[in-house]
């Protein structure tokens, strides 16, 4: 159905296809027993023009490469729905309730170490961002939520997050001694020095 290329063209085509790096015309000629390869290169270049693959010359070196308009085929994105882990949800909640907050503060509140990947996941999700550094020794990075966080959770502002009383009323807090609750109400977080550092205007109820 179509004309077969001559032997030299075929040889150049195969050599460049299999080559591990782009080749100069001279290197090609040396590989092919000193043949005059330039006409073959030009014929191939013309042949591949318009195809999905091109023969291109860059700085005197020839190579096959994907046609520029098809570059998107080489990079495909596949979306995958994943549920946030429990640890990540806790960290997100702490950032939301206490922002801006450093990793050390998050750990103090959670009472457990937080793996570095957890904050990365939240930043990948677009819900948490780095909000600068706290001006204390060590200048730790502090984290805060993003507008995407608010829109994802249907919140107009962080003030829409339920307070501790509401959590309790909703039965979300584990039942504890009444005396403890009275104590907690009387002195919110005062016994937690780390928490004190987190206070910001929006937080005070």
């Amino acid at each position: 159905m179509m004309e077969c290329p001559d032997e030299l063209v075929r040889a150049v085509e195969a050599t460049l296809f299999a080559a591990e790096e782009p080749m100069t015309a001279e290197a090609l000629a040396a590989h092919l027993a000193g043949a005059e390869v330039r006409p073959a290169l030009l014929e191939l270049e013309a042949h591949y023009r318009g195809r999905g693959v091109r023969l291109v010359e860059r700085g005197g070196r020839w190579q096959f490469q994907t046609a520029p308009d098809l570059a998107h085929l080489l990079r495909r994105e596949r979306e995958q729905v994943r549920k946030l882990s429990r640890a990540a949800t806790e960290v997100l909640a702490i950032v939301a309730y206490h922002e801006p907050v450093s990793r050390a503060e998050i750990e103090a509140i959670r009472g457990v170490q937080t793996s570095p990947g957890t904050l990365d996941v939240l930043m990948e999700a677009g819900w948490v961002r780095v909000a600068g550094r706290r001006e204390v020794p060590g200048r730790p990075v502090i984290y805060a939520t993003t507008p995407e966080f608010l829109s994802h959770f249907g919140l107009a502002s962080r003030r829409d997050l339920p307070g501790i009383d509401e959590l309790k009323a909703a039965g979300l807090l584990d039942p504890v001694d009444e005396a403890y609750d009275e104590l907690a109400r009387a002195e919110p977080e005062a016994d937690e020095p780390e928490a004190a550092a987190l206070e910001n205007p929006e937080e005070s109820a």
Partner: protein
Amino acid sequence: MTDTDGLLFEPAGADADDWDGPGASPTRVAALYLELDGWEGPLDLLLDLARRQKVDLKAISILALVDQYIAYIERAEALRLEIAADYLVMAAWLAYLKSAMLLPKDEQEDPSPEELALRLQLRLQRLGAMREAAARLLARDRVGRDVFVRGVPEGLRIDRKNLWQCDWYSLVSAYAVVKARSEPVVHMVRDRLVMTLDSAIDRVSAMLGVRLDWMELRDFLPANVDPRLKRSALASSFVAALELARLGKAELRQEEVFGPMHLRRVPA
């Protein structure tokens, strides 16, 4: 095709037999190589010897093959080569096969030597077929030797993008869990009416002084008091009774497990 890096043995007196190791070319008649390492077991050696009969494997003479194999092994033994046991087992079996084949037919055992010989021939045919197939397979246009794939493919990359999911309820309840876990837990015990152990000991020993008979423990409890005090009094009086018994001031009796407990004074 065959690796010849196994041990090569050259005998002292090479004779006219055109045997050579599997790696040697058939034209090298002069040198006799004995190279047991070069064979993949006795069947492989047999196949090689059979091939030397230069006829179709279906037409080989089993008797001649037996002789050749046994002669080969004997030669190797004469050269004091170490011969793997399976080669010797095969030699012994072939010697048996040969002697059985030479017996008159009516003295032959079952299975007949002909059956055994035919089975051996069938095995050799099968091994021969696979050996040939292997050679033909290796002679094909192999990728990386005869044909080549793209030297530096750009590669197809699939970037997985995670769409993280979390709902309002999970978020808020997670915070509640954190709070519940991290707040210091304080247990408050209300002020309650209790009878201390000391007062119970005083009470019980005083009452034992009055009565000499067995009395039930409950009779020692104060009457008409708050039921909560009553429970405390029962517990304290029980411990008091144990303590008095330990001191040798009282003795205890219980008819059955969980039954009423009785005590009385030990006379001094």
